């Protein structure tokens, strides 16, 4: 084994994590390598120093405080939220924001549609009021005025003109 590989595995070695074969390889390497032997000793001392720092016990009342917060969280959940949904719930504020966005979007869309419709009606009424002599101009069909005789477009123009003026073109 290379020194770098041995030194990477020293924590595993000291903690008893390694397979017997790997442990044996490390021990064989350490016997013949003073650098890795020193690294192994150092690893053991670092481990020992760290483990001398023992934390204080769990604070008194920890369990009661966790349970109080847990019950409060459950209490604030919507009653219609099923158990399966509870784990995947989206924060209330997010749901409220999405709902508000949808309502605003629908309202804007409805207003725009109404406005456009009113605008179209007004334009049509204006055209009729002005009294365009050529009915086709109301529909912007002026470009059909020179349609070839006998063509489908020409027939259509004639039909429209006849209905308006009683005269065929």
């Amino acid at each position, binding site marked *: 084994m290379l020194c770098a590989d041995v*030194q*990477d*595995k*020293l*924590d*595993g070695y000291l*903690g008893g*994590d390694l397979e017997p074969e790997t442990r044996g390889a490390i021990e064989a390497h350490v016997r013949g390598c003073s650098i890795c032997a020193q690294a192994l*000793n*150092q*690893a053991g*001392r*670092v*481990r020992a*120093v*760290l*483990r*001398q*720092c*023992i*934390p*204080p*016990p*769990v*604070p008194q009342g*920890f*369990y009661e*405080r*966790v*349970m109080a*917060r*847990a*019950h409060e*969280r*459950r209490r604030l959940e919507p009653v219609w939220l099923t*158990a*399966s*949904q*509870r*784990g*995947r719930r989206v924060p209330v504020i997010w749901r409220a924001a999405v709902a508000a966005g949808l309502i605003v979007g629908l309202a804007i869309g409805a207003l725009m549609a109404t406005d456009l419709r009113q605008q179209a009606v007004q334009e049509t009424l204006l055209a009729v009021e002005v009294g365009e002599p050529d009915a086709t101009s109301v529909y912007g069909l002026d470009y059909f005025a020179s349609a070839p005789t006998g063509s489908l477009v020409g027939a259509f123009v004639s039909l429209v003109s006849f209905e308006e003026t009683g005269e065929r073109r």
Partner: protein
Amino acid sequence: MASDEELMLSAAGGDMEAFGELVLRHQDRAWRTAYHYVGNRADAEELAQEAFLRVLDAAASYRPSARFTTYLYRVVANLCLDHRRKKRPDRQGDLSHRASSLPSADAQMEAREREETVRRALDKLPDRQRMAVVLRYYEELPLREIAATMDATPKAVERLLARARECLAAELGTWAEG
């Protein structure tokens, strides 16, 4: 006695007693991990509490594909790592239980000095190296479980620990020279 996984399934169905049993069983490990990582009681308790609340929130989607302890350690570790990113750790004023219980003043002074040195050394470690050290040296988790907790490979965990050990040895100085 119900297994941790069975208790989680019960908690998912709204059984708060089952959740409470999980808290009782595992509050020590959540507390220890958080305390060793952040170094002060107030933040450690907040993190440990929040870890259990996160477990409760996610109970319905919990799948026992791994041990519950691995799952809990992962929740605690992620909270600790996020905490460190947001807030500089404050290790002032907290002394270990062991130091304060030593019989002589000299022994207590020596122990406090050693602990201060250890805290400074841990503070200097990058986040993930620090978490690997906590899980390995204080929680004594096997390398594979540390890897599962930190979403890393065992080889990556070995490297984290090796780098951390070098930094710690340098910072601990005479304390680690034996």
